[in-house]
């Protein structure tokens, strides 16, 4: 019994201690001129969909949930956003060459077609990010057109 108390005490101490570690927050409020929405003519409804379903992890501005204030959740999210931005960053869209834009568009289309994006671990808590079949089709069509215009 005593051992359990000691272990729990240590765990509690650690849990409190890690709350004091800061994380990098992905919150740039200036939209760079290279942003996907500024370089391309994107219909408003598609803009809204992309912002709700993709921009949290694939742009320089994450709309953080309240639980991001708690460690280790904040670390977990930081890692996710970093990884997401390394794969595709809509804020830096125009810095990609045409070849890479085509590649990225192709991946976007494939990921949505195969239902791999948005991630289930994300939509579990962000119900508004779920793409209906209709939404998915609209986005895929738009991305396909954009891809063809870059050939």
């Amino acid at each position, binding site marked *: 019994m005593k051992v*359990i*108390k000691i*272990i*729990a005490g*240590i*765990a*509690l101490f*650690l*849990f409190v201690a*890690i709350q004091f570690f800061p994380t990098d927050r992905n919150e740039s409020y200036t939209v760079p001129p290279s942003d996907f929405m500024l370089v391309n003519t994107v219909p408003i409804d598609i803009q809204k969909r992309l912002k709700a379903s993709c921009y949290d992890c694939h742009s320089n501005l994450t709309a953080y949930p309240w639980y991001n204030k708690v*460690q*280790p959740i904040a*670390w*977990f999210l930081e*890692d996710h956003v970093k990884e997401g931005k390394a794969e595709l960053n809509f804020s830096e869209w125009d810095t990609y*060459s*045409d*070849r*890479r834009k*085509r*590649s990225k568009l*192709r991946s976007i289309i*494939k990921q949505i077609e195969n239902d791999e994006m948005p991630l289930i671990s994300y939509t579990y808590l962000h119900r508004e990010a779920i793409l209906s079949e209709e939404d998915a089709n609209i986005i895929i069509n738009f991305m396909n057109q954009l891809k063809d215009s870059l050939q």
Partner: protein
Amino acid sequence: MKTIKRSIGSVALAATLMLTVSCKDASKTEATTTSESTTENTVASQESVATSDKQDAKAEVILKDYFNLKDALVGDDGEKAKEFGATLTNSLKAFEVSNYSADEQTELKEIIEDATEHAEHIAESDIKHQREHFKTLSKDITDMVAITGTKMTLYEQFCPMYDRGSAWLSTKEEIRNPYHGSAMLKCGSVQRTIN
């Protein structure tokens, strides 16, 4: 007392969770260091090739790795494809553009950058994804060869069945389909001979 125990339990759970996360990070860094050391090895072996040949030996190494990857996909072997994806990533990163004209350099840099990303993904995906990436990778490699040239005779082959038509390169004239593997091994035709 019971509630205290319970809350202590949940705190302990949170702590373990945190520890697992940090352990995961540690193994990640380890993985990167090993891949770095392999990069050095490949670069070293490529340099010895470069001095013995006047043609772009680094492009030839990229092609060799690409064909190994293609053969793994033909054989439906996702694990091997992962390995060759990693090797190809390294040989792409070792590519030197300095011997080319300014225009060619820009083009080559873009090609290499794109191809590297696809090779990296192939190194860590299942075979379905590997084949998706292989399609764009093949386009990149074909465009690269158009600039660098090669000593080998290559065949650009095309299968209309995969993803609204997909091409790849091969050193042999007979068709061995990397997109379908054993399911449709001979689907496709030679579109063009290079050299």
